[in-house]
Structures are given as structure tokens and as C-alpha cells.
């Protein structure tokens, strides 16, 4: 019994950090509607800076002062980020800010290694809380007890801040209706900056307070951000008390899950999140989101199929790409195949995101399922390549059909989080079900048949399938179904009122998108000759998001360009520099600021402007002629 109680207390102590970081994320989202992916990076920075400060300054004051100063320093960094970067992109399409903050996260990962080195750092114990308390034979670190006491205090302080100060009232008002608060003459700029500063301060404090418990290392950010997303979604976005309760819930699930179900401990948390989202889509303490106002930046230029000239140009580009084996070596061809596969993957997500308005944060699940499908068929069943390639993606289709059914019941950020949860569940299964999937060691020896094994042949195969998938998806965009899907995205009210079953349309789109991703994954398995849980992982899902947003989410096929640019830059940078993440992150941030509509979106805007000015010129000419007559 005493053991379980000790375990319970450990869970509560872990909840403290989680709560701090999650409440910060929640506050920022509530007011600015930004899903701050860099929140984990700020948490990690807080830990690193606190490590340095507490090492430099001795004594109790040095330690506690160091922790608070570290949080303040990182908050200042946060303010700079908000003023220099985020302010420029508040009006970019939804989720674009996510891309920018993801770029920041990449940069921070390399920066901390540059400054603090790649090794784990062990911080000082907290003065006054070095020992442990004996509880019926169980040692409970006294620092844990301090953390357990701290989180209700922070909760209370935040509550007072939001209920009793003018600033807090403004923040709550802005959480409910930003536009109204702006209309009442509140300086929104500074409100956003201060909210961002508070959120980052809380994240950094959460990181700093962890140093006596945990080693500081450069992978802390991704580990915490996923957990924090889960906490915020279970608790309800924008709710502080929700963040508190959910942080405790998630930490206890982790603490006891590992005892009771060691095999599925990772899945447990995501399973709970999925159940909460399905039963109470806006979280335990959240409120149902009011109908969103029209997204700023939403394009008013309707899509149209390619004109004849553009069709020839695309065909020309494809032929040009097909001539690569004539002059490129084997390495370049392998890179080319990989890029073609990523084009398939990005196009599949793009279809769901831009046409369906559904941003999946876990699209790698269907890519990876396609890859595992091929691995099972080729390795276990020994089927020939052509059959495996055709049947492998069926696993992606099935996964998309099951998860998609639940996911399309939600929308917006909640849809994104549920898809993330599903992807994590699939990843955990692949990771932990060693007897079937090989776990971390993956499945090796998935080699293509002889006809496709030369780099040139495999490149042509990948290129051909990529072109086919992109073309088919484009046809679907302009098909009656594509219009029904866009109608559901544009106005759920109107589409229901013209007899469209929005959920079923979205579900179908999800299945189409998942199948296309599975096709990419199937090729990927043959390209690499193996399958690992990585092909289902979060970072691959994020890569897909980046490619889509980079290409331009408001375009029909922008993801193709996004995938080529991103993947080529990525592969090239990794081969050129040790600081590839820093450069790539900086590149993404620059792209976001320079091209808030994505590369293709930007090109289209220039093209349209030129065309309309030509129209005006010709109109002017006609009117002159008329006057002359």
C-alpha cells in the first residue's frame, strides 16, 4: 500500500512541471489562437539556462534565484520571438504559426547543442530539499513534496491574476472574443505580447524546476510537447483548471500505467485522450468553440483546373524529371526517389488539409501503415513486389477508415490532436509489439524485385506513381465529390442545408488521403529495404505538415513544390552541415515570414495580380477606343 502511495506522490510531483508548461500553452492558445509548437523548446531552454545559472551561483539564493532568473531570461527571449516573428504572421492562414514555431524548435535544438554540448547534464539538488522523507519504508524525495505543494500555489496565483487584475479580465475577454476586445480599444499588440511572455515564463519555469529531478538534454522539447498537447486537449484548450486536472491525470496514468500495463503504458495516455475527445470533444473543462469567424487570409480566388498551357508545362516538367537518370548518379537517383515518395505523402495530406480543411497532425500513421503492410506481405507472406505494392496501402486504408471515422466527428485543433493521438497509438503498437513488428529493430530485408532494383528503374517507378497519385488527387479536387468536400469546409451550415452529409464526405476524404499516404509508405519500404517505427512517428507527421504549409495550403497542388523544396533542402543540408536543423529551422522561419501563403500561393498571387493589371490595361485601351469613336 505504501508503495502505491509513493508512486501516487511521484505522479503528483511530475504533474507540477507538466501543469506549468500546459497552462502556458493553454493561455497562449486561448488569446492568440496560436498552437505554439515551440513551447517545448522554451521548456528545454528554461532547463538549460537554469542549469548554467545554478552552477555559477552557489547557495540557496543562487539556486532559487537562478531558477526564477532563468524563467525570466527565457520569457524575454519569448517576447523577442513574438515581436519579431509572430506579429508578422498573426493573419496568415490557420496553423501557419505552427509551422513558424516548429522552425524555431528545430533551431533551438541545434543551438542548445552548440552552447551546452550534446551530453546529458546533471543539475544540482535543491538546497533545503536534498533528502527524502520516510513513509512506511518508502523513500519520498522531499523535493517531490515541494513540487506537489507548488502546483496548487501556481494555480491559485494564476487564478488571482485572471480574476482580480485588469490585465486578467482583458485576457479572459480576449479568450472569448478577440475582435470585440480590439473593437473596445484595447491595445491588442501588447496584450498578445504579454500573454506570450507569461506563457513562455511558465514553460521555462517548468523546465527549470525539473533540473534537480531529471537530466537536462537536447531531446527534452519533443518529449514534453507531445505530453503537453495531450494535457491541454484533455483539460480543454484555454482552461487553466483543466490543465491542472489533466496534468495530474496524465502523470498518474504514467505512474501507474507502467506498473499495471507495462506493455501498453505509452498507449494508455493516448487512449484516454482519444476517449475524452470522442465523448467530450472540447475537453473536460473546455467550452465548445463558438463558430469560427471566417479565417483571415482565406483566399477569394476560386480554384480552377489547369489550363492547356499549364498542363503542357506540367507534362514538360515531368518529362524533364524523368530524364534525370540520363545524367545523374546512383546517389542522386535514390534522393530523387525519396523526394518523389515525399511528394506522394505531402500531396495526400494536402488533399485532406486544403480541400477538406482537416489538418491531420498524425498523417505519418497511414504512411507507416502502408510501409508495414508491404513489409508484412513481402517478408511474411513472400508475395512479389507488384502485389505487395498494390495490397500494402490497404493497411493504410483500413487504418484511415477506422481512425478517420472518429476523427471527422471533431474539427479544427481538436481534430488535429485526435489524429496525433491515433498516430501515437499506432506508433506505440509498432514499437512495443516486438514479436510482430520487430519493435525498435524494425523489419529488415524488404528489397524490391529485380525489375525495379536498379536505382534508375526504382526512380522511374516512384516518379510515375507520384505523378499518377498527384494527378488522381487533382481530378478528385475538381470532381463533384471534391466540390462537396470544399463545400463542407467552407460552410457546414450551408452544405447541410443543400443535403450534403458532411461527416460522410469528410470520412471518405480521410480514407482517400490515408490510402494515398499508404502508397507513399509502401514505396518507402522498398526504397529503404526496411521498415522502422520512425515511419509512423511524430516527426514524420510534422514533416508532412511543413511540406504542405510551405507549398501553400490554399493552393490545389502546392504540396508538390513544398515537398520537393523541403526534402531537397533537408537532404542537402544534412550532407553539408552538422547544424542542419538550425539552418533548416531558420529557412522555414524565413519562408513563413516571406511567403505566408506558401511558395505556390505566393506565385499564384503574383500571377493573378499581373493578369488583373493586364485586364485593366486592356479595359483602359477599350474605353479609350470607345471615347475616340
Amino acid at each position, binding site marked *: 500500500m505504501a508503495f502505491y502511495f509513493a508512486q501516487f506522490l511521484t505522479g503528483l510531483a511530475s504533474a507540477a512541471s507538466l501543469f506549468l508548461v500546459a497552462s502556458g500553452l493553454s493561455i497562449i492558445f486561448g488569446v492568440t489562437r496560436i498552437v505554439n509548437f515551440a513551447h517545448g523548446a522554451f521548456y528545454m531552454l528554461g532547463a538549460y539556462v537554469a542549469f548554467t545559472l545554478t552552477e555559477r551561483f552557489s547557495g540557496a539564493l543562487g539556486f532559487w534565484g537562478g531558477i526564477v532568473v532563468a524563467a525570466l531570461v527565457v520569457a524575454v527571449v519569448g517576447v523577442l520571438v513574438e515581436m519579431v516573428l509572430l506579429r508578422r504572421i498573426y493573419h496568415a492562414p490557420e496553423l501557419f504559426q505552427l509551422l513558424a514555431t516548429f522552425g524555431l524548435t528545430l533551431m533551438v535544438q541545434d543551438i542548445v547543442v552548440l552552447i551546452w554540448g550534446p551530453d546529458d547534464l546533471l543539475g544540482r539538488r535543491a538546497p533545503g530539499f536534498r533528502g527524502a522523507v520516510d513513509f512506511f519504508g518508502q523513500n519520498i524525495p522531499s523535493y517531490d513534496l515541494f513540487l506537489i505543494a507548488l502546483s496548487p500555489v501556481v494555480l491559485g496565483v494564476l487564478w488571482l491574476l485572471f480574476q482580480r487584475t485588469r490585465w486578467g479580465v482583458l485576457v479572459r475577454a480576449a479568450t472569448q472574443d478577440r475582435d470585440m476586445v480590439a473593437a473596445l480599444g484595447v491595445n491588442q499588440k501588447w496584450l498578445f505580447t504579454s500573454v506570450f511572455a507569461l506563457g513562455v515564463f511558465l514553460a521555462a519555469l517548468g523546465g527549470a524546476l525539473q533540473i534537480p529531478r531529471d537530466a537536462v538534454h537536447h531531446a527534452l522539447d519533443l518529449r514534453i510537447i507531445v505530453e503537453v498537447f495531450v494535457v491541454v486537449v484533455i483539460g480543454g484548450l484555454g482552461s487553466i483548471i483543466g490543465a491542472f486536472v489533466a496534468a495530474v491525470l496524465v502523470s498518474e496514468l504514467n505512474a501507474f500505467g507502467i506498473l499495471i500495463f507495462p506493455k501498453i503504458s505509452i498507449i494508455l495516455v493516448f487512449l484516454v485522450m482519444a476517449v475524452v475527445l470522442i465523448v467530450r470533444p472540447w475537453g473536460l473543462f473546455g467550452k465548445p468553440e463558438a463558430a469560427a469567424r*471566417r479565417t483571415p487570409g*482565406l*483566399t*477569394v*480566388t*476560386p*480554384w480552377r*483546373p489547369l489550363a492547356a498551357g499549364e498542363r503542357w508545362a506540367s507534362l514538360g516538367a515531368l518529362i524533364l524529371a524523368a530524364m534525370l537518370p540520363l545524367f545523374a548518379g546512383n546517389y542522386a537517383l535514390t534522393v530523387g526517389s525519396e523526394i518523389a515518395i515525399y511528394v506522394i505523402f505531402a500531396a495526400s495530406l494536402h488533399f485532406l488539409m486544403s480541400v477538406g480543411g482537416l489538418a491531420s497532425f498524425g498523417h505519418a500513421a497511414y504512411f507507416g501503415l502502408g510501409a508495414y503492410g508491404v513489409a508484412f506481405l513481402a517478408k511474411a507472406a513472400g508475395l512479389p513486389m507488384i502485389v505487395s505494392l498494390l495490397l500494402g496501402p490497404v493497411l493504410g486504408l483500413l487504418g484511415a477508415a477506422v481512425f478517420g471515422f472518429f476523427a471527422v466527428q471533431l474539427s479544427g485543433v481538436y481534430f488535429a490532436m485526435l489524429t496525433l493521438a491515433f498516430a501515437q497509438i499506432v506508433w506505440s503498437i509498432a514499437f512495443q509489439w516486438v514479436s510482430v513488428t520487430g519493435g525498435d529493430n524494425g523489419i529488415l530485408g524488404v528489397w524490391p524485385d529485380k525489375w525495379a532494383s536498379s536505382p534508375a528503374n526504382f526512380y522511374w517507378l516512384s516518379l510515375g506513381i507520384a505523378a499518377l497519385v498527384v494527378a488522381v488527387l487533382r*481530378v*478528385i479536387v*475538381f*470532381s*463533384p*465529390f*471534391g*466540390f*462537396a468536400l*470544399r*463545400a463542407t469546409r*467552407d*460552410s457546414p*451550415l*450551408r*452544405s*447541410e*442545408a*443543400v*443535403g*450534403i*452529409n458532411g461527416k460522410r*464526405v469528410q470520412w*471518405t476524404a480521410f480514407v*482517400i488521403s490515408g490510402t494515398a499516404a499508404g502508397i507513399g509508405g509502401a514505396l518507402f519500404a522498398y526504397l529503404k529495404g526496411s521498415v522502422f517505427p520512425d515511419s509512423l512517428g511524430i516527426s514524420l507527421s510534422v514533416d508532412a505538415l511543413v511540406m504542405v504549409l510551405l507549398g501553400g495550403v490554399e493552393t490545389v497542388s502546392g504540396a508538390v513544390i513544398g515537398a520537393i523544396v523541403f526534402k531537397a533542402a533537408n537532404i542537402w543540408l544534412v550532407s553539408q552541415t552538422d547544424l542542419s536543423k538550425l539552418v533548416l529551422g531558420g529557412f522555414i522561419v524565413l519562408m513563413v515570414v516571406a511567403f505566408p501563403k506558401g511558395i505556390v500561393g505566393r506565385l499564384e498571387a503574383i500571377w493573378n495580380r499581373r493578369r488583373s493589371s493586364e485586364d485593366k490595361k486592356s479595359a483602359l485601351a477599350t474605353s479609350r477606343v470607345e471615347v475616340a469613336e
Partner: protein
Amino acid sequence: MSMVPTLLSVQNLSKSYGGVHAVRSVSFELRAGEILALIGPNGAGKSTCFDMLNGQNIPDSGRITLLGEDTVGRKPRAIWRLGVGRTFQITATFPTMTVRENVQVALVSYGRQLFNLWGSTAQFARNEAGRLLDLVGMGAYAGRPCGELAYGDLKRLELAIALANQPKLLLMDEPTAGMAPRERIELMRLTARIAREKSIGVLFTEHDMDVVFEHADRILVLNRGSLIAEGSPEEVRGNPQVRAIYLGEGLVYDARHREGAGA
């Protein structure tokens, strides 16, 4: 009149929220080709009534018979399939499509082609969409992005969308809200003309009494959830209970009416 079939029959419709009776035992009928106005002060229960008719809200009790079918508990899209067109108080259209495509989506749905993955929407029912747009005077705007339209034009586009399923009944929630006075008259004249030509029944809520008295064949007056008057514009205008609610407006219209009669 008795030869004309009943499109919509509402019997003892009730809905309450907590202790508030939003709609109390409301009954009425609507016949083909008839234009029926549902009026009442703010909070009278017009919107609740309307939402129950088109399936967005489920009544606590009562019956709604639409074209011979009981529609209580059916989804809006199912009611649309029965032949009910709908316009909203704040227009709901598809802003990223062209004007023509907006109508084509409705036609695609009417033609049960929603899950057709391979056809070209551009060619789908293009002529039919053009005819509907011409009907509401929007033919010249067919290729324009819907997001660029002025509000009055959006209202007309919405009417074209609502007519796409060749409805027998149009439900219009404050069709002229937010429009300039001249546009209001034009839109309602247009609606009335189409309704008479195609023998469509129209039920609309409205705050503008000019519009109501000029176009409605019959008027229902709701107050605090209950139907307090029903009849021709003249009957309703003369009803002392209605006057008590609409005192200011009633006098104005009475005066204007006399002026008009004098001239």
C-alpha cells in the same frame, strides 16, 4: 383555396429551455403557392420555431407534417431532400467558389452525385446553374468569386441555391436583414414572383413591416412563444392585440396606408 394542397402542417409545436417556454403549442398550415409571414418582437420564438421546422432543433412536443411526412427528428439535409429550400438570416454560401459553382454544388447534391470522384464539376449542370442565376438576376456574375460579392448579391445567390432542388417550400429566415431598403423590396418582389410562377410555398420571418404587409398573403404573429393572431395583412393590421405589441410601427403603417389610399 381548398383545392390547393397543404404543404406544411404544424400542430401544437412546443419547446422550452429550462423554465422558459420559447414556443407554446403553435399550430398553423401553409398551402402551395402561399406566402406566409411569421412575425413577432425579438424573443417571440420565431427563430426557435424556424429551427424546428428545418431540423436544426427538436421540439419537445407537437407534430410537423411536411409534404405528408412527419419530419420531427429528421436532419436538415433529410428535410432538404423532401423539397425544402432554405435561406439564412446571415447568408451562408461557399466563399472560395465562384457564383456558378455555389449553385452547382447544390445541383450536384440534388442529382445525387456527391460521391462521384471522377466527373468534372465544371460541366455538371452548367446550364441549369446558369438558368437559376438568370432567374435571380445574377447571370452576369456567374464567373465571379463568391467572396467578392456585395451583401445584397449574396442574398440573391442564396435564393438561387435554395431553388436548386426545385423546392415546394422555401424557408427564409429574415430574408432582407442587413439590406438597403430598395434591395429589400426588389428581393421580396423577386421571391414572390418566383413563388407564384412555380407555385412554391414560402414561410419567412421578418422585422421589416413594409416587406411583410406588401408581400405576405397571410401573417402569423407570435408573442412570448404563443400565436396571438393569424390572418390577412388587413386583419392583422386591425388586430388590437398586435397593435399593442407593435404600437409604434402599427400607427406608422396605418398612417402610410391611409396616405397611399388617399393618393
